[in-house]
């Protein structure tokens, strides 16, 4: 099965990086979606457009250890009944050195068509997250 891994270093604390992934008010500024959940293991999560209605991706919180590790399942809503089509995203956040966080996103169990999309999407999203956390501004092109 396919996987995609992306590592980035951000001048921020691990908590700020965690918040950027999990807090709608931050996420909406660089991802054009919000990630909605209470982020407890076993809970559902939803990747929702800014219209507040359209869910593009959803899944379960599989593991949650703020601000260090989050593991979620990831699939389009129409694939909910087909677990064999569900992928998995693991976020690992650490303090690489004082003032610099290391974020590794590992997206695994990917079907080929999903691999293509996320290989384009993650670099855009994570570059934009870095811009937002370091400069206070993100691009709005996506």
């Amino acid at each position, binding site marked *: 099965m396919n996987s995609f891994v*992306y*590592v*980035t*270093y*951000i*001048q921020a604390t691990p908590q700020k990086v965690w918040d950027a992934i999990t807090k709608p008010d931050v996420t909406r500024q660089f991802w054009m979606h919000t990630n909605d959940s209470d982020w407890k293991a076993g809970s559902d999560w939803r990747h929702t457009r800014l219209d507040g209605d359209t869910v593009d991706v959803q899944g379960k919180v599989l593991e949650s250890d703020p601000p260090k590790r989050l593991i979620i399942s990831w699939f389009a809503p129409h694939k909910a009944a087909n677990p064999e089509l569900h992928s998995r995203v693991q976020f690992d956040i650490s303090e*690489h*050195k004082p003032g*610099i966080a290391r974020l590794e996103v590992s997206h695994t169990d990917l079907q080929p068509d999903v691999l293509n999309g996320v290989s384009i999407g993650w*670099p*855009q999203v994570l*570059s*934009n997250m*870095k*811009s937002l956390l*370091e*400069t206070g*501004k993100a*691009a709005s*092109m996506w």
Partner: protein
Amino acid sequence: MAGSSFVYVTYIRSPREKVWEALTKPEYQKIYWFGGYQESTWKAGAEWKMFMPEHGLTDSGEILESDPPNRIVIKWRNEFRPNLKEEGYARCVMELAQEADLTKLTITHTIDKENSQFIQAVSGGWPRILSSLQSYLETGRAHGDTRAPAEAKK
């Protein structure tokens, strides 16, 4: 596909010309590349050499293609770690594309060898270098040396 490869894409809020300049001028490289720098005229056929403060010459090769500010292709071999040097020449393609106020920078590093230790080494290095480059161009503040202590000594 035979061989090994590493691909990294980053989007930098800076014009393509500025990103090109930062990639090719030693005074900028030293700021975000852990103090290292490269010597070349960046014209096709030119020699290319990389130096790190603690090692001197670390990598060398040749510019295979150069199309400022769009694309550079470097024939690239490590020179100071014997296990990497014996893998021979790799190929590094740097592509810059302007997308609105962002530059999309794509680095594709490939070698004609399965399970390449060289590609494994650069896979750790590029995210550190390119994260620092993005910070430098967007905020004026690079990351400093983000290598692990053991890596810096190697």
